[in-house]
């Protein structure tokens, strides 16, 4: 066990953990965050996505010790129920989910995309989100939500 300092959603946190623990379990169990979700533990589905130093990474596959000096943003760090981030507002507007378990990965990956490319094409959105799995089949709505967040016209 070791004392590990983390910078999560602009707050400094210190946890006691085995340094090899995947970041996901520290975020969920020690910091009580609900945004990053366990889906596979193998880096295959994207449910556990967090933004680390501007990149969308799989928190199930990053040791907490490797995240010590990074700036970490989870879904909680975007906006709140009362003041949602424009992306979250666009997902609500488009009703872009069913069970929404995968939407953490969708929204955070879209955030990284829009930060780099304010007006992505449909193909660029699909390419960026392609690694994130969704079993409910909400893909079309997610694409519309990302376009809406980018200020593009959205056809129903």
């Amino acid at each position: 066990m070791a004392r590990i300092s983390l910078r999560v959603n602009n707050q400094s946190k210190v946890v006691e953990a085995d340094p090899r623990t995947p970041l996901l379990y520290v975020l969920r169990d020690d910091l009580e965050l609900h945004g990053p979700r366990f889906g596979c533990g193998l880096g295959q589905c994207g449910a556990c996505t967090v933004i680390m130093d501007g990149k969308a990474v799989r928190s199930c596959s990053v040791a907490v010790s490797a995240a010590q000096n990074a700036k970490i943003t989870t879904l909680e760090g975007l906006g709140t129920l009362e003041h949602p981030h424009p992306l979250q507002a666009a997902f609500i507007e488009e009703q872009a989910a069913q069970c929404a378990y995968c939407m953490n990965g969708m929204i955070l990956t879209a955030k990284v995309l829009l930060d780099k490319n304010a007006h992505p094409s449909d193909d660029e959105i699909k390419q960026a989100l392609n690694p994130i799995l969704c079993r409910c089949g909400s893909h079309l709505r997610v694409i519309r939500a990302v376009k809406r967040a980018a200020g593009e016209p959205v056809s129903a």
Partner: protein
Amino acid sequence: MNSKISRRQVLKGTGALVVYFNIFDPVSQVMAQVAPGAPGEEPQAAALDSWIAIGRDGKVTVFTSKVDLGTGIETALSQIVAEELDVPFKAIHMEVGDTTKTVDQGITAGSRTIERAGPQLRQASAAARQQLLKMASTKLGAPVEQLTVTNGVVSVTGNGKKISYGSLVGGQQFHVQIPATGEGWDLKVAPDVHVKSPNDYKIVGTPVPRVDLPTKFTASFVYTQDVRVLGMLHGRVVRPATVNSKPASVDEESVKDIPGIVKIVREGSFVGVVAQTEWAAIQAAKALKVTWTTPEAKLPANADAVYDYLLKTKPFAQRPVVNRGNTDAAISGGAKTYEATFRWPFQMHGMMAPSCAVADVQGKKATVYAPSQGPFETRKRVATLLGVPEENVQVIYREASGCYGRLGTDDAAEDAVVMSRAVGKPVRVQWMREDEHGWEPKGPSQLLTVRAAVDASGKVVAWDFLDRSFPWTESGGQPLIASRQVGVKGEGQGALNGTGGGGDTYTFDNQRIVAAAIPWVQAEAFPLRTSPLRAPGDLARVFASESFMDELAAAANADPLQFRLRYAASNQRATDCLNEVGKLANWQARPAPASAASGNIAKGRGIAVCARSTTVVAAVAEVEVDRSNGEVTVKKVSVAHDCGLIINPDGLKNQIEGNVIQGTSRALMEEVKFDGSGIKNLDWASYPILRYEKIPNVEIHLIDRKEMPALGGGEPSIGPIPAAIANAIFDATGARLREAPFTPERVLAAMRTGTTSTRA
């Protein structure tokens, strides 16, 4: 830190499991004074207070055992209640799936929640409204006939007097008995109470946004996976490669260096680890050395062996779906006869969130948080497992990811119970991805044979359809993995994998449609667990029947849509769906296949129609087939959908889009691979599903039938998707696919031979 105690626990004075988050809005402030019945009593269907409570602030709490599996049912049911009570939609709060607070309305499955639970809540709401009007009549000194209700406020026509629901009953019980007969799906509540005419609906039929999505998008929603209980430990299961293996030895020394292990739990064949942290539990479950016995009953060696087994084994149950005329005689006497056999593989539910549950077993009592489709069924199984009365077990539903049928979510509850009992503390069990892929019950494999005869004029005069399917080994009240591992015995050979979709949309002079369940005739249980998978059995049956209709149309050189309309003439709703989907897809009448174009990319369109219980769906798929490598891309799917009266058109469209995408995935890519030693797809790399790069566009036409009851929309529209795609591949290439999924290899093989030649 907040503690949340159920109102019944307040009454019983029993200690509640302390959960340290706010699950719901603080309606309990208003609700706490509402006594739901005598202490210790379960909610009774005949008590109005079991269904609806109105707070002083006018908030309406609705109690239902129907659970939201991610389909938006909580929103739709809230619309029904708000409409019938004449209160604003936002006044409704649902208490969902807590066995101590709700009447058992049967499991949430089969797209039957709107159809069955909708009327139960509508009638209870109407009964409550009637009671409120009576009370208002006394309070305001005016006859009921002079009263109107707007937004939960009762007014007297003409004199301006008014009183709110909150003032009439807030914080108090109704103390009214209502008629209630039957149980579960068939429960009838206050059936004679007058309800609104659908023509007067203001909330039902509108695209009210989902109540859960804002919290889900901002991470404030609490999934089962997020439930944390004070003093909770973390459990992981340790499972063998196949169902019937037993632990011959467990080497506890193998994990002694992992800090934080609380206990290696062994009971019967059950092996699990409990630890103080998730990471310790994960490491220990992985490192624990277990020697497993080699089971006698092995899986068949491969898919061919499965289909051969299905063909040669006598069914234990056969259900005649349609039996009209004399099919055998008509086939013998036909001018021309046709026959084809179709194959459908085992497929996965493929839930995004591996199964999870939290249990706290204290002596003879247990509290379980689980994403169970049937909280009361889970309660019964847990009670049997623990050997305690059902009322000693409280099951509280919390949502997980979309499940699309019965699966490991129920198993995990039993795992958590076994481990919590072993350590005397609350335990959270989270299956790993390989547990989920390996042990989720699969959708059964099916072998389907269709025969038909036409007369001299080319009219189809006989239709003979036989579905041979493995049954569901994990359904009804069957004990699940942990129960069986600790010695609870299951009964019977399992339930039939559904019956619809074998050509029952059409009428032929002689017509026989039979669904048969094929038993597993070995001493040990079937090594590959099976259960209902979204629109159970329908995808395979519709794939077979609607591909075969397409073959008959092609043989008659007829347009596939016009050919179907001829035999669907007596089925108005199917006829309407076919015509509407034809318009939506700009269908031009011509026979299939399309004339070949030059180049590698062949384009085609295919149609299919079917009914699932009482909902009718027609779909047109437009595909591109790369002739060089056999790769199929579904470009667009058009759907015409008739589920009677529509409650929420946007929620319904959301379901249909999802059905099309999941159906495309199952048609093109999904097949459980196995050999005698176990399942081979234990992660997403080996069981790929459709991604953004291959998502089809979806266009939808909803047929709203205000004169009809509201019917299910959660799964019927997945039924015709594989058939429509197969027919589009035929239109594009002239190759007939008779085995799913339509992988590039199978498409190339079919293009070489004209069919996949799987004739059994």
